[in-house]
């Protein structure tokens, strides 16, 4: 069976280019210009998938991106992509597609049993059944996901490349149909920069699927060519506008090489993500035909009327020789004519009793039998339509009565009218209004969002006739460029005369739910309005009975309008059926707000090129290459890569950290401290400013001296800390935590600019201007003396002071400050000398057993001294008093940031959690950071938490484990024993101690 449904001629396909592809393992051929959907249909393949919930056999509904059923697992391995719509996949040679949601095969699916037990799977079934007991949800969910699944995600890394780019334009036109082409053409007649975007491979929109009207076709071709030749115009075919955000910011995905097949894109990306800022937006998004809701209207072969026309006209595929057209409006008459012209036997079933004589005459001319005032009462065939029964419809449309006819057919082309694609307007914040004449929601221009100026034109505005679309588009294009300050020029637009192609939808008589001989929800048949989510009219009745009357409740209860098609074909039918049940008008039921994306998009496209190594920028210190050579293992601190530890051969992390930690206290170690935040502060009011920023006194700090400071927010909580040095009368060098540098600079700027703009203070980030080596350990002075001309004696250069001089021949500022409690010097040199300093020290340090140490050893060393790390030992709820750091809070300053909050009752209470040391009874047990200190150990949670471990290590210097933690009323509890409950259920006992474990008197640091 090779392309048995392909017509001998016609369509926009290239019959000379035969393409091979497989579906469910079976080989087929198609032509260049086909979609996967049209190629399958050409081969007579109508059963394409199983439905989401009931596993009912499903086939194509549509020919465009609104397709709810024909979801494919495209390609294998790393290239596989689930839930792709067969209607949107351009056929390429070697394409591999598989159906979804069936087991073991598409023809025989075990899950189809769900259909027979449908009465036990009503709307809200999952909510009702599986919400209790809540603890079992995790168990149920796995099975539900498997049973009601769609496609399968790839498990291998994505081999494709994606790009993203920014663009600006004066006029962005969404949709390349007649209205959009006219708008772009009119706009391009000025000097404005115009972008025209369309999701299809060719411009022309609905005309591509309609029977050719020569004057329209030639105008489409000519205007597309003219736009392509215009340098002010960017044409983006195969591109979907996915989101419309504030201030006319829109995103779009361009499928650059998808149509070539996986791996065939060469150097071009697979997809490109556009982020576009437009002065004016012309929305010409067209409309989507909606199905009639009738008994078993989901059988494969029951399609939208325009889809049947498109397969005939655009792809040269006549899906069956016997076609029934079922409609409540004029537009489907075009399909009847298209099918009849292609040789099919066509029967027209129109629910309307009265139809224009002209339409009847056209049908007679094409030998189409016409039934007016009739409706389909039932469908025969499960895996494909075999016949339909039709019966006369009562005048009120609520029942069927009288003579039934059975008509053999393989295709039912049906139309319930056209729903304007208001997605973009709705996303832009505009509100909709209901237009009774077309039975659909259209944009209300009076309720457009002012910050998103633009126009809706053509079918998405409720104008369906091609001539109206062109006229509206051209006018909007002119208005758009004029609004941007350009002079619009008149562009000739075609005159359209063909009556059949110029009436648009014509008259429509709404029939939202086609009755059967049974009441809704009874009898064996199902009336689907939402195919993708398997929601039926009976489900809407159930929702109404159970009180879910509002559109938002209806949507969530029945899941109508959800999933990957977002209800493109179903939303209005659902609203209308609910309105009928409630006896309300459709606008009273309301409509849901459309949200991005318009169609599904890949994470790859969103990520663009910012993946893998480009995902996050890395900051490297000037000595980074030295660390790499020294075998450093790095850790991330903010964006910085900091050496974590430097393992020698055969060492694991623990061994390396223990060695480094011991070495610093016995000999000397060096740490790359360049990442420390550094802010240069100058100005006549700098000292006064620091008095407000820090808790302690700064005015009396002598030039050349350093002081530790705590910064609080206005809540009185610790927010950063660091050492600041007075370099001159009005000049300070502030250091911050490595991760807090930007935050602190923002904080200083905020106060200077918004509260004290009169103060003469200037802050400059100099973090990256200085390379810093921290030399720590008893031999630090002896080592530094071999390289420096600075007098390092403790009299000349005491603890907490700074001296300038030469180190290793480099001009340096040396700060005698210590984060380990050892004799220490932090050598600052201009960044460009960092590597030279590091390498010189490394060489000079050999006789002193100099070791490199990383951040982990630094953490152990500082914790041994009880030095906190802001953000590890504090969490934004900790005051200086909680840290037992009252010594750093001035009692004499009238004010500083956060001071007043100390008096707040909660801050002032004396049973807050406070910093303590913790020594486990078993010295080999290293507590887990975050472990809870509990009032009383019980067999199982809950237990009353009275504190937590914030830092915990094994110390080679203490020869045991130790920890810091926050404990309720901890300062008064030193010497007590507390219980900790670990995550694995173990209970551990620990002694509460002072947080300083080494050199409590501070002899070493001053030595």
């Amino acid at each position, binding site marked *: 069976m090779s392309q048995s449904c392909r017509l001998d001629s016609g369509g926009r396909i290239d019959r000379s280019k035969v393409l091979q592809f497989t579906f469910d393992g079976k080989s087929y051929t198609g032509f260049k210009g086909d979609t996967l959907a049209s190629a399958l249909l050409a081969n007579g393949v109508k059963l394409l998938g199983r439905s989401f919930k009931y596993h009912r056999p499903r086939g194509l509904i549509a020919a465009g991106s609104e397709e709810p059923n024909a979801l494919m697992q495209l390609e294998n391995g790393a290239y596989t992509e689930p839930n792709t719509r067969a209607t949107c996949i351009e056929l390429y040679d070697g394409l591999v597609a598989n159906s979804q949601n069936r087991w073991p095969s598409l023809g025989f699916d075990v899950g189809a049993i769900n259909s027979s037990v449908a009465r036990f799977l009503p709307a809200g079934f999952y909510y009702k059944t599986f919400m209790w007991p809540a603890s079992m949800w995790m168990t149920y969910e796995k099975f539900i996901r498997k049973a009601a699944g769609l496609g399968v995600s790839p498990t291998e890394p994505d081999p494709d490349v994606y790009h993203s780019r920014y663009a600006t334009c004066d006029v962005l036109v969404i949709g390349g149909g007649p209205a959009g082409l006219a708008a772009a053409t009119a706009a391009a007649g000025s000097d404005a920069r115009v972008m025209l975007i369309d999701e299809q491979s060719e411009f022309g929109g609905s005309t591509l699927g309609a029977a050719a009207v020569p004057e329209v076709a030639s105008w489409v071709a000519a205007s597309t060519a003219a736009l392509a030749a215009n340098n002010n115009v960017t044409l983006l075919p195969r591109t979907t506008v996915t989101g419309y*955000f*504030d*201030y006319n*910011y829109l995103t779009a995905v361009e499928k650059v090489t998808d149509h070539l097949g996986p791996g065939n894109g060469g150097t071009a990306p697979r997809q490109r993500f556009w982020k576009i*800022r437009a002065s004016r937006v012309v929305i010409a998004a067209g409309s989507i035909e909606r199905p009639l809701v009738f008994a078993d209207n989901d059988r494969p072969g029951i399609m939208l009327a325009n889809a049947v026309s498109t397969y005939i006209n655009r792809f040269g595929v006549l899906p069956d020789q016997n076609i029934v057209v079922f409609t409540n409006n004029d537009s489907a008459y075009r399909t009847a004519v298209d099918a009849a012209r292609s040789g099919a036997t066509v029967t027209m079933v129109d629910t309307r009793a009265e139809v224009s004589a002209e339409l009847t005459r056209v049908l007679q001319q094409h030998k189409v039998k016409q039934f007016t005032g009739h409706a389909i009462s039932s469908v025969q065939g499960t895996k494909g339509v075999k016949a339909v029964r039709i019966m006369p419809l009562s005048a009120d449309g609520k029942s069927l009565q009288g003579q039934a006819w059975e008509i053999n057919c393989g295709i039912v082309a049906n139309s319930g009218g056209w729903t304007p694609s208001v997605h973009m307007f709705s996303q832009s*914040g505009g509100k909709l209004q209901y237009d009774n004449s077309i039975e659909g929601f259209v944009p209300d221009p009076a309720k457009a*969002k*002012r*910050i998103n100026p633009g126009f809706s034109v053509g079918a998405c505005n409720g104008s369906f006739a091609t001539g109206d679309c062109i006229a509206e588009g051209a006018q909007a294009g002119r208005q758009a460029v004029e609004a941007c300050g350009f002079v619009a020029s008149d562009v000739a637009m075609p005159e359209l005369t063909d009556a059949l192609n110029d009436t648009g939808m014509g008259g429509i008589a709404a029939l939202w739910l086609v009755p059967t001989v049974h009441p809704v929800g009874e009898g064996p048949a199902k009336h689907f309005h939402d195919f993708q989510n398997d929601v039926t009219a009976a489900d809407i009745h159930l929702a109404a009975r159970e009180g879910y009357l509002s559109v938002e409740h209806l949507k969530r209860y029945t899941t109508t309008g959800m999933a990957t098609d977002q209800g493109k074909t179903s939303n209005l039918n659902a609203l209308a059926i609910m309105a009928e049940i409630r006896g309300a008008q459709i606008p009273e039921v309301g409509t849901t707000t459309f949200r991005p994306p318009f169609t599904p998009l890949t994470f790859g496209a969103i990520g663009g090129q910012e993946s893998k190594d480009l995902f996050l920028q890395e900051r490297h210190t000037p000595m980074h290459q030295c660390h790499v050579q020294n075998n450093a293992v790095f850790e991330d601190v903010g964006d910085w890569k900091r050496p974590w530890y430097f393992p020698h051969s055969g060492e694991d992390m623990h061994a390396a950290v223990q060695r480094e930690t011991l070495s610093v206290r016995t000999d000397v170690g060096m740490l790359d401290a360049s990442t420390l935040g550094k802010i240069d502060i100058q100005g006549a009011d700098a000292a006064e400013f620091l008095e407000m920023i820090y808790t302690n006194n700064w005015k009396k700090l002598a030039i050349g001296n350093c002081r530790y400071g705590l910064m609080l927010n*206005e*809540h009185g909580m610790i927010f950063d800390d660091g050492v600041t040095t007075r370099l001159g009368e009005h000049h300070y060098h502030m250091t911050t935590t490595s991760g807090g540098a930007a935050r602190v600079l*923002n904080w200083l*700027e*905020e106060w200077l*600019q*918004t*509260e004290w*703009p009169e103060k003469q203070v200037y802050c400059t980030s100099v973090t990256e201007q200085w390379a810093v080596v921290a030399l720590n350990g008893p031999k630090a002075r002896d080592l530094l003396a071999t390289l420096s001309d600075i007098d390092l004696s403790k009299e000349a250069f005491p603890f907490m002071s700074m001296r300038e001089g030469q180190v290793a021949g480099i001009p340096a500022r040396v700060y005698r400050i210590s984060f380990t409690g050892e004799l220490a010097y932090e050598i600052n040199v201009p960044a460009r000398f960092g590597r030279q300093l590091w390498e010189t020290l490394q060489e000079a340090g050999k006789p002193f057993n100099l070791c490199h140490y990383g951040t982990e050893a630094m953490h152990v060393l500082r914790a041994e001294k009880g030095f906190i790390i802001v953000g590890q030992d504090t969490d934004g709820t900790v005051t200086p008093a909680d840290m037992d750091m009252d010594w750093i809070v001035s009692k004499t300053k*009238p*004010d500083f940031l956060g*001071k*007043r*909050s100390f*008096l*707040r*009752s909660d801050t002032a209470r004396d049973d807050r959690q406070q910093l303590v040391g913790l020594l486990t009874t078993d010295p080999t047990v290293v507590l887990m950071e975050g472990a809870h200190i509990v009032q009383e150990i019980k067999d199982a949670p809950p237990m009353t938490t009275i504190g937590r471990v914030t830092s915990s290590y094994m110390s080679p210097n203490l020869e045991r484990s130790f920890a810091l933690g926050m404990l309720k009323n901890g300062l008064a509890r030193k010497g007590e024993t507390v219980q900790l409950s670990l995550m694995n259920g173990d209970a551990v006992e620990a002694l509460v101690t002072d947080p300083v474990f080494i050199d409590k008197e501070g002899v070493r640091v001053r030595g």
Partner: protein
Amino acid sequence: MFIITCPYCGDRDQTEFTCHGEAHIARPLNTESLSDEEWGDYVFFRQNPKGMHRERWVHAHGCRRWFNALRNTVSDEIFATYKVGDARPPLPENPS
């Protein structure tokens, strides 16, 4: 994604800015003499209106200057931006 007119640089993309909440809240000068309620009002309480809002923005990835904006929190329309210390622009006649 807003376009924000920095009073120093002109129209820029929102990604260059950060918002810092309600504007025109002066830090009290006599903090010691405030009642807990008065201090709490300054530290914790904000108007958070549905509608017109004067708020602080900083051109963080630009000139790094702080300024104020008059924004409708419902429509996100920004009616004015103005420098710290400048007179407050009047509310618009047609705010939405």
